[in-house]
């Protein structure tokens, strides 16, 4: 099956923001937007729903902290008790720093991994570049051609109004 796209390439942050906003307001289906860096307000312009990554971060952080507390109890209190300064085996304050570090480690690393998988960027994945410039100085807006309802002339007009430096039509073949 073939999926057709209309691609607009821009050179300024303000242009990509205005083009994306105008496209969303007109009701076009925005396939994706590529930018060389995080552009403030782009998520709102695309109309993205809030990210669910914070939940991954929170729950995995909690899991990391819980596992670490259990592990410290088990090592210092049950499996190999060591007398440190006459403190009880299960001295909670001594566990806090490492628990904190492991919590941050779990939360941080798991969020990055979850992000990569959600973005389909697992190891070995081939990320198609809409334009070589998106890793450098260019911004790319991709609209989905939804069939007869897709008003290509209007889309091209929106792109031109926002100073698009290039407009292309592309076809992606999905097997």
């Amino acid at each position: 099956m073939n999926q057709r796209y209309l691609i607009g390439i821009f050179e300024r942050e303000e242009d990509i923001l205005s083009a994306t906003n105008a496209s969303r307001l007109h009701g076009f289906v925005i396939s994706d937007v590529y930018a060389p860096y995080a552009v403030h307000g782009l998520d709102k312009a695309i109309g993205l729903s809030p990210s669910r990554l914070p939940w991954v971060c929170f729950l995995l952080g909690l899991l990391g902290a819980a596992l670490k507390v259990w592990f410290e109890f088990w090592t210092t209190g049950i499996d190999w008790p060591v007398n440190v300064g006459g403190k009880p085996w299960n001295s909670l304050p001594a566990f806090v720093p490492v628990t904190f570090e492991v919590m941050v480690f779990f939360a941080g690393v798991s969020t990055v991994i979850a992000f990569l998988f959600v973005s389909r960027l697992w190891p070995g994945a081939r990320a198609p570049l809409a334009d070589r410039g998106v890793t450098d100085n260019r911004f790319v807006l991709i609209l989905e051609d939804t069939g007869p309802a897709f008003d290509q002339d209007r889309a091209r007009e929106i792109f031109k109004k926002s100073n698009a430096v290039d407009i292309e039509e592309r076809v992606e073949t999905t097997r």
Partner: protein
Amino acid sequence: MEDRIASSVASGIIGVESNGNLAGRFSPDRDLRRVLYALGVAGGAAFVIGAAISALHAWRALLMSSFLLISFGLAATLFIAIQYVTGAAWCVAIRRVPEAISSVIPWAALGIAAVIIVKPDIYPWSAQPEMFSEAAWFKRLWLSQPFFTARTILYLLSWIIISRAIVRNSRLQDDTGDIAYTRKNIRLSALFVALFAVTFCLASFDWIMSLEPEWYSTIFAVYNFAGLFVGGLAAIIILTVWMDRLGPLRGILNREHLHDLGKLLFAFSTFWMYIWFSQYMLIWYTNFPEETVYYLRRIEGAWGTLFVLNMFLNWVVPFLALLPKATKRNPSALIKVAYVVVAGRILDLYLMIAAPFANGGPKIGIIELVMILGSLSLFLLIFIKAFRNANSFPTGDPFLAESRHYHR
């Protein structure tokens, strides 16, 4: 910084906006001011009566109230200074709020100076110097009346002079929009940040830690800084939301400003807990009697409840409440968290300042409560007066437009 100002001027986002008429003057309800005056007078009366009945109690409460107010003022000045030094634009639209808060510094300084000069006897090293005749020569010199008083006056004067100068420059810029004022304030702010780091450390050692002169903790100043900043941020949030609700900042304050203030509150609340624990854990681990006495005093009997409550108000509640993005962006939710943190700040100071004097459990008397309420009322009156004396946002600041269109 220079480049940024220049490029902003060139691209036209900068310059005096023609919205001087939008920046109206704030005039709050007269009844509100009457109530605040009454509470302030009641606080003063409570101090006078308390000083007659039980002098130590009243003077210690004065130290606590004055330190609470000066820490709001210092946190606000530091907040402004950090924005200038880092070239931050986001908070320019709401900068008149911390500017007005910083005007409490001279008044709170009077309270602290009164304690240090009139009633140094609340400090054991001053009341019973013979107990410390065996102490190291440096400690005896450091905790000697003339040196102590001279240091206090030096800290207070330097804070008053710099914070007043920053606010004056910011207000002068309103009429002309002259970028020279921004440059002047960047220099003053850099000076303030460096000077504050040293003077506030010493001040917290002097005014609070020396209430228990035989106990010491090298992280005590950092701990006090954390409390100062988290409490100050809460005060900034409360007053910003009030000024939005009462009118002067309506249409100026947006959710992005609140979101960032909320993030700062979240971060510094966690920083406070981190430093609290850093101090606690080393003392707990080492287990030296001369160090553990500080905590033993504060977990005994009913003190223990306050000791645990302190952690809940300053960290557990704000941490859990501010985790979701929605709380930080919702003014009525954010302001409630800020109220909790201010209550936590007062409790934290109470644990630091009142516990050394207690025989047995905490005795929170009428005098203390009325004085704290009175000092908060005076703080609001000073704030209202200062806020009324200027435009409600810095109309001449080069970054105003950037701050108002922030993330939009």
